[in-house]
């Protein structure tokens, strides 16, 4: 057993990476090869799947739609959460602790619960099948999360910093934008990351609230699987591309997330 310390982690990493590798592997195969033979790497290497996604608007629009509502959602969530988290971290008011906890309980309900009311509401306001509809729906989950994360970071900043700024002559908003926001930049990064990730992977609400114009990529993928036979290669390529934005965002905020874990809020 002495020299086999590497065994368990290696096994674990292979176990984790295998599905991702298989997805990548399939994305370079033709559908026939996927269905026909079992191979650890593409026998007939092809980029056709990717070509199709980048040229066919029904495909690439899925990505554009997803990115649009995810970015809108992240912007709204963080912008709204910033002053809310500030209030929770700096002021004591009647029922503040209950309100703070209640915000968090919003995340305990499964999104499916809200699918019907949201569908009805947004249809009534003619917001159905718009990016803003999905972005707003995701706010229900993301704003509480962002408030929770940001409050942790803000409470780590001493109140004296605010007071010093006032003593220096800063007005509240000038202090908030010029000094406070840069001070908790790491927290904003972490909050934005979690909003982005949630909104990016959430399928049910996004699918319910859109039909054509704002259809997310994940919905496009399910359609392909059912109507045009099994275009498995295409599907694998789409899946691979779906992983990329998350990986990119994680790369940029990885240090901040470590900090967030240290503060016990992520």
């Amino acid at each position, binding site marked *: 057993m002495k020299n086999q310390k590497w065994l368990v982690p290696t096994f674990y990493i292979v176990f984790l990476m295998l599905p991702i590798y298989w997805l990548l592997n399939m994305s370079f195969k033709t559908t026939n090869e996927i269905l026909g033979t079992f191979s650890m790497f593409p026998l007939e290497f092809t980029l056709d799947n990717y070509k199709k996604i980048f040229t066919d608007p029904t495909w690439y629009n899925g990505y554009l739609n997803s990115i649009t509502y995810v970015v809108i959602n992240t912007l709204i969530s963080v912008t709204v959460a910033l002053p809310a988290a500030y209030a929770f971290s700096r002021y004591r008011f009647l029922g503040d602790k209950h309100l703070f906890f209640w915000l968090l309980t919003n995340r305990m309900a499964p999104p499916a619960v809200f699918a019907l009311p949201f569908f009805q509401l947004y249809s009534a306001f003619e917001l159905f099948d718009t990016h803003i509809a999905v972005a707003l729906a995701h706010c229900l989950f993301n704003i509480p999360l962002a408030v929770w994360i940001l409050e942790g970071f803000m409470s780590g900043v*001493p109140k*004296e*910093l605010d*007071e*010093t*700024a*006032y*003593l*220096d*002559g*800063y*007005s509240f908003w*000038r202090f908030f934008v010029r*000094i406070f926001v*840069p*001070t908790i*930049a790491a927290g904003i990064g972490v909050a934005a990351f979690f909003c982005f990730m949630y909104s990016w992977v959430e399928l049910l609400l996004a699918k319910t609230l859109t039909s054509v114009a704002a259809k997310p990529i994940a919905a496009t993928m399910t359609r392909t699987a059912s109507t045009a036979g099994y275009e498995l290669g295409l599907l694998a390529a789409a899946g691979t591309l779906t992983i990329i934005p998350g990986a990119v965002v994680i790369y940029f905020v990885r240090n901040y997330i470590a900090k967030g874990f240290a503060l016990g809020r992520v």
Partner: protein
Amino acid sequence: MGIELKQVSKRVGAEIHIHPTDLVLDAGGFNVLLGTTLAGKTTLMRLMAGLEAPSGGEVWFDGKNVTGIPVQKRSVAMVYQAFINYPSFTVFDNIASPLRVARVARGEIRTRVGKIAELLRLTPMLDRLPAELSGGQQQRTALARALVKNAPLVLLDEPLANLDYKLREELRDELPKLFQDTGATVVYATSEPLEALMLGGHTATVHEGRITQYGATAQVYRTPNTLLTARVFSDPPINTATVDKQGDTFVFGDAAHWPVTEKYAVLPNGIYTLGIRPHHVTVTGEHADGVVVRGIVQIAEISGSESIVRVEVAGNSWVSRSHGVHPFEVGDTVELHMQVQRCLYFDSGGELVAS
């Protein structure tokens, strides 16, 4: 600038943080607020700065009522115990920030920041972020920011408490000099009596939300008006005991007695509380008017060139502080020389009688 508190009080819920207080600070001088933690020093400062609104009373600056004026418009600078700087700004930007807000011309900002940085030996650090500085440098940056805007009122809330010994000594020497030429009224909170003595100026002793005495530091130290002030302004704590004045003799139980001096001759006979500072009850040195009392050693502690002993004297727990290193065994009986002309006498209400 003249600062005056008129019947200022502060209540939070049912808790009284500051009882109605009147105080006129020494304008343009060094004012020390001396008291233990939670005595109300910080609250008093926050009331002066306008960071907190008083529950009652008024704050006056230079004969003007500023009670309702927001902190931004009061032109006050404050330095905290924790090193507070803007983490995302460089040292230069930190020091320059009050001037930028006041829309001072760019060239002037550069000269003024340069001058202050030179004074506080921060010139090589101007491009660094506060996180890249040592504690002493961080606090000097905070001080520089307080100095640069030439605020007429500067509040220093235990600014040296978080620094290590050497740095504290160094900065403490510099502080009065730094503010001397600015003409600013400085308020300095501390919990250490020694620090108040070293800083000089005027001292207000604070105890449980009240200012017990205010005056020139040396005078408050030498003649505390009340036992409470004497207790606040003594480290180690002042020794107390009950003495009985019988005609022309003060009788300290069975331990000692000494003649009543002329000064106290007019006092009626009866019970008084005696207060004597630890360094006036020593194991060494015969004083002309010294009285010998016996005590049993409870704890002995030798620090450098001083011996501090806790002794039991006629049922009172006293502290004696003497020069030189003297070995003691716990349980020993020691002879202490008490300089009776240094004794302070307080009546039953804790007020100083004559002096």
